[in-house]
Each structure stands twice: as structure tokens, then as C-alpha cells.
């Protein structure tokens, strides 16, 4: 199956953003450090896609590459990024600036570093409206007030005059979300949007993002290491390991019958409320992958409990062996395929 067919099967309404075989590397020549390999993802209009993986798995690098915001030294080594059919990697920097904000918007983890500490919230919100959208100051201020209302910041008009340090962490994240949606983006990328927040605030921010996506018809890409976060708000999930997609499935399917041994192990490793303290947690043995020392074959093989000799020499393809399913897996063994097949055939859900 070719990659193009695959992504079409995965998103029935046609993708708004599509990554095909994206690779990201740092450095040149012999010493290139490949952090993302051949990542293909797509998200349909209004759909929420979760990207899950541990630190260093390449989830943030993939999205920075798609936005062409890789830090110095990083470059796209292969692949294409299509926003509504336009390859973003071929655009001029000037055209790309229009895409950021109006096409794709990004919310990052740390609102305090993402916001300018020396500008009021109102001034930094209005800046792109005046400069890129040609609004008047007065119109921009009105729009800012509407946006702050929309993201649930009380007393919006007064808050526009506040500096970032005067707001709580949750309020700052809300302000950042307001800025992200200000140009009506088609795709909102949220990179660990709640990691730095308290648990009660985290839950409110997640539900805010979920509501805005539905109300404004945006596609959402939610990057996180927390499977609990993904469970609440996404339609589909891609699991990344060592810079590669190892499994993509509908959220419900992924949680009920994960197929890649890594996904299964990740789900098993989570502490759950109401567990007895006598039970031991089941962490994944060994260490997370080190991009400086890539493992031959399947990158998960040193930590995998289903490993066979083939896994140590040949990298498995990302493919869907369950006919008619939409659940590609990168595994030679595919040990949990049966329950997944049953779930796919009993598609009455």
C-alpha cells in the first residue's frame, strides 16, 4: 500500500494538514543526527489527532519542521508537508509567515516564555492583527476583547492592560490560546499545552481547547506524553517512538486493543487511581531510546517482551495487516493483532 492511499483511508473527509515521509536531521554529512524518520500523519478538517510519545521521540521536532520553525542546525531531510494541498516546504519565507497564524497556529507548553514579558497582553495580541490583517487599532482591541471572552478570561477589557507576569499560569495559557486562534487557523497545534499547569487548571484548559475546536471547526493536533490527556479529547492517536510512527488508530481502539508492544507497555505502565498500593507498577524496562546511538532493526527491540531475531536486524514497515481496518502498526510480530481484528469486524459501535 502506498503512503498516499494509507492517509486517505485514515481520514475519510480528506486531510487539511498532511505530512508525508517527513524526516528531520541535525548537522551535515557523516555526523547527521536523524531525530525524525519518515513520519506520515494527517488530520482532517475539524478532527483532533493526538501525538503521543516520550521525551526525545521527535513529536515536537516533527511539528516544528511542519511549521518551518526548526532551531538552527535542524533541517528537513525528506518528505513534504501539505496544508490544503499546498506544499509548505516550497513556500517563500514571506508566504510561510501568512501560513503561521492563519493556516497553522501553535500553542506551546510554557506560556511565560511564549509571551513577551515587556508588552501588555493587549499589545501583543493586537500586533499581528494590525500588521498582518490590516486592522485598525480600535478594531483590533475590540477583537482582542472578544477573544479573551471566548477563552474565558473574566474582565477581558481590564486584562488587556495586564502584563504576562500579572496573570496566573492558567490565565496566561488562556491568553496564549486566544492569540493562537485570533487569525482563525485551520489547524491548531498544541504542544504539551497543560504540562506546566496544576491538575484542576489543566483539565479546564483541555476542555477549553476541545470546545474551541468544535465551535470553530479547527483541526487539532495535540502533542503530549500523557495518555490520559489524549483519552479525553482526540479522535485518533499516533504513537511515536525514536522518531518514527509505530502505531496509528482511533482513540477508542488504541486504548481498548493497542497492537504495538510499545503502546501496550505504555498503557500498562500508567498508575491508575484506585490501584492498591500493594500492586507494583509495570514500567517499561530499560532506557528511552538515544538518538545518538540508534539501535539496528526495530528501535523498541531492546525493551520489547515479544522480540524475535528479525526485530534486531530489520526495521519493520508501518503497515496495516488487518484488511479494511485503519490501524497501521510498525511491528514484525504484531502480537496483539487478534483482539484488534475482532474489534474492527464488530464495527457496530
Amino acid at each position, binding site marked *: 500500500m502506498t503512503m498516499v492511499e494509507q492517509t486517505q483511508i485514515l481520514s475519510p473527509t480528506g486531510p487539511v494538514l498532511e505530512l508525508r515521509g517527513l524526516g528531520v536531521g541535525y548537522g551535515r554529512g557523516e555526523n547527521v543526527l536523524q531525530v525524525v524518520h519518515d513520519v506520515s500523519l494527517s488530520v482532517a478538517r475539524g478532527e483532533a489527532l493526538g501525538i503521543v510519545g516520550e*521525551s526525545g521521540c521527535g513529536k515536537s521536532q516533527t511539528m516544528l519542521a511542519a511549521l518551518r520553525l526548526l532551531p538552527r542546525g535542524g533541517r528537513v531531510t525528506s518528505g513534504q508537508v501539505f496544508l490544503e494541498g499546498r506544499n509548505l516546504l516550497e513556500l517563500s519565507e514571506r508566504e510561510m509567515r501568512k501560513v503561521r497564524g492563519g493556516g497553522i497556529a501553535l500553542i506551546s507548553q510554557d506560556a511565560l516564555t511564549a509571551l513577551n514579558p515587556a508588552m501588555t497582553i493587549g499589545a501583543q495580541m493586537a500586533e499581528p492583527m494590525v500588521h498582518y490583517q490590516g486592522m485598525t487599532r480600535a478594531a483590533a482591541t475590540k477583537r482582542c476583547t472578544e477573544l479573551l471572552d471566548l477563552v474565558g478570561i473574566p474582565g477581558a477589557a481590564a486584562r488587556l492592560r495586564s502584563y504576562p507576569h500579572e496573570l496566573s499560569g492558567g490565565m496566561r495559557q488562556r491568553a496564549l490560546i486566544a492569540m493562537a486562534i485570533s487569525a482563525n487557523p485551520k489547524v491548531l497545534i498544541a504542544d504539551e499545552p497543560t504540562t506546566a499547569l496544576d*491538575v484542576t487548571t489543566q483539565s479546564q484548559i483541555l476542555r477549553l481547547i476541545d470546545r474551541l475546536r468544535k465551535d470553530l471547526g479547527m483541526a487539532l493536533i495535540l502533542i503530549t506524553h*500523557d495518555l490520559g490527556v489524549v*483519552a479525553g479529547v482526540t479522535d485518533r492517536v499516533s504513537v511515536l517512538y525514536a522518531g518514527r510512527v509505530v502505531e496509528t488508530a482511533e482513540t477508542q481502539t488504541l486504548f481498548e486493543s493497542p497492537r504495538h508492544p510499545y503502546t501496550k507497555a505504555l498503557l500498562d505502565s500508567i*498508575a*491508575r*487511581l*484506585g490501584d492498591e498500593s500493594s500492586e507494583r507498577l509495570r*514500567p517499561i524496562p530499560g532506557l528511552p531510546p538515544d538518538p545518538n546511538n540508534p539501535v539496528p532493526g526495530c528501535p523498541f527491540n531492546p525493551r520489547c517482551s515479544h522480540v524475535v531475531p528479525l526485530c534486531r536486524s530489520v526495521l519493520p514497515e508501518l503497515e496495516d495487516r488487518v484488511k479494511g481496518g485503519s490501524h497501521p502498526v510498525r511491528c514484525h510480530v504484531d502480537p496483539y493483532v487478534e483482539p484488534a481484528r475482532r474489534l474492527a469486524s464488530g464495527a457496530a459501535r
Partner: protein
Amino acid sequence: MTRPAIQLENVSVRYPIRKGLLRRVVGEVHAVEDISFSINEGETVGLVGESGSGKSTTGRALLGLSPLSAGEVQCFGRDLRSLLAERGTLPRVSQIVFQDPYASLNPRMTVGETLREVLEVHGLATGAAAKARVNQLLADVGLREDIAERHPHSLSGGQRQRVAIARALAIEPRFIVLDEVVSALDVSIQGQIVNLLQDLQRTRNLTYLFITHDLSIVSHVSHSIVVMYGGQIMEKGPRRSVFAAPLHPYTSALLSAVPIPDPKIERTRPRLDVRSEPPDPTAPLPGCRFQRSCPFATQICRTERPPLRGLGGDTDHVAACHRMEEPHVREALTRTARGALS
């Protein structure tokens, strides 16, 4: 019968706010207000709350790192102030492990040097004996001997946290404060550290104060739970009863907010919604600290501080809420808890 190893009675920690050229004291931050709880020997108390709730200050106060403004702390039958007065005594009893081992380990020293330093400062071992002891410590926390030659930057987050635990164990303390020790680690690795800590507790009869905002981890490791908000205890009791039948709306709000890794439960369970209004520690409100965020707050909550009390004379599981007996409050809290635990 287990006896309390650590006992806090009416402990308060306040910091002065200074202003101007003369550094005059213009106010106080009420970081911890009149809290009491105890930890049985060989057991774990989970201390939960959000940032600014006073949970880390409480942990630091037990190590003498935050001065007590009021109240008493007993450590294994001795008064904390007298332990602090004898130089070098408290560290032999109590140790602390922090969230970020990268910040708490000296980047210029190898792991072996870091561990040997502790042994030498406390006069526990030198020379070859120290070297053997370092190897033993590394083995105890599941690290290979060759890690001793490495610097912290070349270790993974999980390995660094193991080193920080080894350092705390070096002087064989009886009590360890664990302040967000797994929060910075990948989920797949968190379990390794939690299992290690539980093994060490069993084999050495260690007493832990486990401070975290992660309720799932806390439910796994704790015998009892203390829930703090705005520097005060909102609820405390045995783990099972606090999670299954919370008495305080804040506990219920925390349970509502924990992301549950099951799409069906996560999308349909009943939640208790609260407003996010962090209390101002420099100007504490009269009445209940949680009043501004609480969906059940009424007049009395704004004027009178609720005392900690149990339902029907229960003295183990107590909460500070004026309205906890009212049937509709009980109903809402129980329903949320059941939804989160199913």
C-alpha cells in the same frame, strides 16, 4: 502496632515581606497555616495540592529548611528544634529528594564523588571502605558500578533520580521527604522509580512523605493522604476512604481533574467543576480558603474557618468543610469519586 514516626502539631510557616531601603517588614506570606498530621513508622503519607498550596514548604519545614513560625514537630520522639540545634544530627534522621535531580546534583562531580562526599562529611567511611559503600549504594538503587565514573549530564533522567535517591540513602536516614520525585520523568520510567522506592521502604522500614500533584501516583504509594489548599489542610485520612468517599469539595475537584487513560470513562464521568481562583497567601481571606473556587460556598464559608472534623464521629478521616453533611453535597462528591475510580 505502628507508632507515629513524624508528628506535626499546629505547624505554621510564615515568611516576612520586606520593602524599601530599610527592608522594613510590610506583611507576611502565610505559606503554611496551623497544620497537624502524623506519619507512622514504615508508612507513606501522600501530600497533595496545587502549586502554592504549601506542600513543598511543609516538606522543607520537616528538614529544617523552612523555619517554623509556630507549632511543634516530633521526629522519632525527638523535638525538631533540638535536633536542629545539634549540628549534623537531623540529616542522619531525615533526608529529602527533589523533583529535578539535574539541579540538585553537582554537574562537576562524578556520581562516585558525589556519594563519597556525603560519606566523608558524615564520617561514615573513607578510602576503600567508601568506595565499596558507593558500589553497594549504586546496587541498592539498581545502577551498575561503572555509573560511579560518570557525570550527571551523561545520565538519563531516571538514572539521575536513582543517584539522588542513593545520595539520600547514603547516611541511612529513617525518614525521607520525596518532593515531586517522579513528576519530571517519562511515564514509562516513573514506575521504575516508584517500585524502587517501595522496595526500599519495605526492606529498610523507611518512612516517607510523598509530595506530589499527581493523584494516580499518590494513590499507588500512600497509606494516608493529606490534601492541602492555600496553606491549610482541607482533608486527611486513610488513602482508600479519602479517594472513595471524599469529604471536601476540593478533593473531589482534584479527582475530577485527573486525566483518566480510558476514553469512555474520561468523556462521560461526572465532574465537580470549580473556578480556578488561587488564594492570595499575603492576604488570607476570613473563612474557608477554598471559598472562591467552591461551588457550594455560602455565607458561613466566607466568615468562619471550618474546623477539621469527621462524619459521624470518625476521627481518622476528617475534612474542613462546613457543608459536608448536607445530602446534596455528599451526593455530588460521592458521584464524582465513583466516576473517577470506576
